[in-house]
């Protein structure tokens, strides 16, 4: 099995993600420079916290451009988790940040403007998801799976061609995306116990 490169840009739960990928059966290396990204076979971009801060670091370090080249020119499998998925969007609102990577159509918005009455924000807890079977990359998740979410912002307005799962709350906030060699999850597979490990196993076995 290939080595999975987990990107450390100072805004991720690197040890949890590395530990879960190792548990799912792969060797893990933690990398932090564009040069290291350029040598990677399989990339994981974790992320917790503020998308604006994450975005600034990814842009100024040159990691964003290095990732774009590896994914779109060299077709390397890529997984973005939570903030690591949100930064791929065209637009971000968190902390007044501007545009994201622009890899996926949609806008990252505050969940407060999508919450029903008595619905708490941040959205924290174990949730079932609505899998979009039309998108073949949705098969990395189980329709019966329950995954751990922990977020204040969410991705909205992503077409079915790129979205693999949504929530049945928060106006159908995107739960996972998939297109080309890119997958991303709003939930935390590294913290979703057996269902999360199974998702990571599918990602490790994926040969796009």
């Amino acid at each position, binding site marked *: 099995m290939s080595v999975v490169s987990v990107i450390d840009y100072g805004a991720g739960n690197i040890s949890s993600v590395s530990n879960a990928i190792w548990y799912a059966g792969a060797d893990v290396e933690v990398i932090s420079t564009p040069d290291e990204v350029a040598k990677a076979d399989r990339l994981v971009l974790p992320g917790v916290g*503020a998308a604006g801060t994450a975005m600034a670091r990814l842009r100024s370090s040159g990691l964003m451009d290095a990732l774009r080249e590896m994914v779109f020119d060299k077709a390397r499998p890529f997984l973005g988790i939570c903030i690591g998925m949100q930064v791929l969007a065209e637009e971000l609102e968190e902390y007044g940040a501007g545009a994201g990577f622009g890899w996926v159509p949609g806008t990252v918005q505050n969940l407060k403007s999508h919450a029903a009455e008595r619905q*708490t924000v941040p959205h924290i807890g174990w949730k079932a998801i609505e899998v979009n079977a039309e998108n073949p990359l949705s098969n990395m998740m189980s329709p019966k799976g329950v995954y751990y979410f922990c977020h*204040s912002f969410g991705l909205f307005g992503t077409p079915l061609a790129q979205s693999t799962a949504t929530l049945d709350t928060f106006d159908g906030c995107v739960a996972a995306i998939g297109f080309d060699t890119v997958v991303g999850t709003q939930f935390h597979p590294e913290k979703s116990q057996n269902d999360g490990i199974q998702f990571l196993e599918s990602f490790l076995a994926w040969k796009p």
Partner: protein
Amino acid sequence: MLLSKNRLVKGTRYAEYRDAGSAKTTARAYNAQGADEIFLLDIDASKENREPDFETIAAAALECFVPLTVGGGISSLDIADRCFKSGADKICLTSTARSNPALIDGIAHRYGSQATVIGIDVWNEDGTYLLYDHLTGRPTRDLSLEDWLDQVIDLGAGELRVMDVSREGTREGLNTDLYDKVRTRVSVPVILEGGAGTLSQVAEALSAGVDAVALGTLLVFSDNNIRKIKHYMRHEKLPVRL
């Protein structure tokens, strides 16, 4: 999981502690039994004015494929940083939030509100809910529960762990009245803790609309385990993840 000098302990009303095993093996067991979240609290760190036990946090984190919330002795952004690097997914501030409310804002800005949990320890004095002060071991009237809730939410708290200290370890049942009081004042998730001694008490709390409960005594000093507890809740038609 209450951590004291490298060992887990459990007591009554934050006193009379008894040994409750090792953090690493207990985290492994709780993970295997299907815990939805593991909460590791270093109960001496703030009192002894020292840093939390990072080594034990890291050892427990390697066993957790569920969220791990860490609390106790987190008195600066730098210490919070080291907790996250040790494998914490969320940080819980209780007394350090009281002594330095700006820290709530600092952590929420760097890691996001969703990673910023505030512990609200309450003492029930004849029906009046007072904030409980760990450093003195007594309730305080310096600040009301309501004002403190408003303050922590304003500073960026993303989740509350509300503990009725007067019930902690007593098996009297969870205080759903306290939960309702807090839940109607805030719009963030609330975890209720303190007093769960039987499965029916947990079921009653969940039926009464409590979103999440934290269990200690019920797991440590009884023949229950998380799997058994969850099957009981499922049998009672309550929403749990099996």
